[in-house]
């Protein structure tokens, strides 16, 4: 018994020491297409930096978030570079868990980063994560169906127009749903959409004293509007649909409109996968005339955990992956349409990119329209457009998301869902000590 443990130990120890001289960076990243492409192109980095080896840990979004959060909070030290979102950055930076990115090298041109994105990744003007790609949300719609309904989509529609159009486009016999929206429970699933939507209805999660606001009429308007609209014009099974499910529906021509991440535009306009590629139009996320639109802001970003021994190499890598030169590299290898969007002003000024990505202009406008530090009509004590950047939000957002998806599924009335949401939020906020 002891011998076999020993042999096993030797075997795995032998395997672990295979990389001798070079410094090995362990990079945790999400399995989205742009990151996969970065791994493919990483030879460019290692050939320029022969003393640095790269080692990837690619995981789906939820698992990745669990892994990196557990690791950084327990100082496990498994990763040298972490891919994190705009939700994590302000929270982690405040805990001093991230190293400030002050050594990105000459020519990095920090000022070129889109201001909305940059401010979401900075605390007290210091950049703690570099954006790899950024997104907002907007409307994707079918031009042919819109025309058939006798309507024209304005560039900046209102919710009333969208609801009206959705109901007119719906044709149950032809399996066409006027609008597809997220319904699957989760703080990054239905609550990302609904929180952004509620901003445009004048609602907010908390007032200035962290008192939850689900008992206010603005939330009632938001949720009722959403549930009614989805009942009349949404697809069946909406309460378990997230980004991917709706993407599949849209690509098969089963949605008249879809409000979701701007990165979806490159999927729905790709003729290889999408049956409706040539009929897709874009518009800004709707509003209610209150000064805020229902669009969010997110950036998958690269950051260096404070526990790493390889901070210098890590910053070198981040500088490479988020540089202008990287965008050029992707463009030359795989075409401008595949460049990671939403991070740099210069990209949107590039005529080649504008031509390759017809949705570029509206993507930029959407990103610019989102303001994480001032997300709502009424004042709030928190940062974040479609989330609240406090540690308690993931759990709370998911619970509220469960309640709202029950309202969507018809298992609970809108009033009950809101009352329970208010109840659990007060409970959670009391426990965390925000309110008495």
């Amino acid at each position, binding site marked *: *018994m002891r011998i*076999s*443990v020993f042999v*096993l*130990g030797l*075997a*795995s120890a032998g*395997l*672990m020491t295979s990389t001798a001289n070079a410094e090995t960076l*362990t990079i*945790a990243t*999400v*399995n*989205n*297409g742009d990151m*996969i492409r970065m*791994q*493919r192109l990483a030879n460019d980095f290692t050939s320029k930096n022969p003393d640095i080896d790269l*080692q*990837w*840990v*690619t*995981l*789906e*979004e*939820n*698992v990745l978030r*669990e*892994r990196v959060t*557990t690791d950084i909070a*327990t*100082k*496990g*030290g*498994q*990763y040298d570079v972490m891919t994190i979102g705009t939700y994590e950055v302000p929270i982690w930076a405040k805990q001093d868990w991230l190293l400030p990115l002050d050594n990105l090298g000459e020519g990095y041109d920090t000022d070129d980063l889109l201001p909305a994105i940059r401010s979401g990744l900075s605390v007290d003007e210091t950049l703690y994560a570099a954006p790899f790609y950024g997104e907002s949300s907007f409307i994707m719609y079918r031009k042919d169906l819109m025309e058939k309904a006798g309507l024209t989509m304005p560039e900046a529609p209102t919710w009333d127009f969208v609801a009206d159009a959705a109901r007119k486009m719906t044709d149950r016999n032809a399996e066409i749903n006027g609008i597809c929206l997220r319904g699957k429970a989760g703080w990054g699933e239905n609550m990302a959409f609904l929180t952004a939507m509620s901003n445009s209805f004048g609602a907010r999660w908390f007032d200035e004293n962290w008192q939850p606001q689900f008992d206010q009429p603005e939330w009632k308007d938001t949720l009722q509007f959403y549930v009614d609209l989805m009942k009349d014009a949404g697809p069946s099974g909406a309460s378990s649909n997230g*980004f*991917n499910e709706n*993407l*599949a529906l849209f*690509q*098969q021509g089963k949605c008249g409109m879809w409000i979701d*991440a701007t*990165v*979806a535009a490159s*999927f729905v306009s790709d003729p*290889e*996968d*999408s*049956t409706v590629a040539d009929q897709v139009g874009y518009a800004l996320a709707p509003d209610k005339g209150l000064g805020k639109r229902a669009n969010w802001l997110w950036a998958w970003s690269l950051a260096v955990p404070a526990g790493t021994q390889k901070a210098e190499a890590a910053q070198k890598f981040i500088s490479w992956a988020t540089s202008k030169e990287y965008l050029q590299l992707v463009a030359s290898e795989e075409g401008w349409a595949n460049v990671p969007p939403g991070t740099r002003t210069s990209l949107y000024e590039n005529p080649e990119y504008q031509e390759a990505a017809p949705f570029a202009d509206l993507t930029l406008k959407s990103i610019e329209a989102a303001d994480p530090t001032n997300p709502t009509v009424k004042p709030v004590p928190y940062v974040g457009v479609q989330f609240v950047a406090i540690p308690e939000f993931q759990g709370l957002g998911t619970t509220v998301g469960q309640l709202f998806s029950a309202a969507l599924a018809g298992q609970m009335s809108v009033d009950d869902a809101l009352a329970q949401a208010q109840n659990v939020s007060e409970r959670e906020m009391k426990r965390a000590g925000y309110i008495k």
Partner: protein
Amino acid sequence: MARAVSTRRKTIATIAAWLVALVIFFPILYTVATSFKTEAEAISGISLIPSGTFENYVQVQTQRDYFKPFMNSVVISVGSTVIALLIGIPAAWSMAFSPTKRTKDVLMWMLSTKMMPAVGVLVPLYLMFRDFGLLDTRIGLTVVFTLINLPIVVWMLYTYFREIPGEILEAARMDGASLVGEIVYVLTPMAVPGIASTLLLNIILAWNEAFWSIRLSAANAAPLTAFIASFSSPQGLFWAKLSAASTLAIAPILIMGWFSQRQLVRGLTFGAVK
């Protein structure tokens, strides 16, 4: 006459059994079929005959090397099972052949250690692993799987050993066999079916364990469950690629299971056979 009835009965039973078996197997069959479809085909409704593209497998392999997680899965699941057997065989032997009043309680207690919800102890265990330097090592995962499966191993072996008549052992003892000799030359050969199926069942359980294997590994020790987690639910269409990755992850254990099903079944009695 009798034969005619029996043939007819056999035919009916055959049709029924095949129908049920195909229904049960269908999700796997469909996954394999989907792995040969394009992404657009994969979401456009039922069809078992794909266009026959290998593109998904190529993409899966270029995106993430299959061999390393595969080797990790093999080393960890086989290693943990073998160690669990080495610890479990003596324990089960002594429980079966020198039982005390408390043997039953000890057994039940061992099983009850499996009732601790894994998520509840993640952080404490993560901290311990960090302090012992076991994070992202094959040894760390092997240790955890050994401990997770040990109760099942002991229990399966115990129930199997109990089937072995004590007289044989006593006869061996009369012949002057030492205790070790008794185990090695008398008991083990008789218990081979039980040990074999214990081995197989626990390799399967360890292979499919998807909580600790992902949470305690990063780049070096990540087994196939982590391989799968890098293909599920990215932004964009993924059913076909995920199907290909799933097929790759399931295939080794499925093939092993198919070839060894006779051994698996023979010892899988848990003492349930008189």
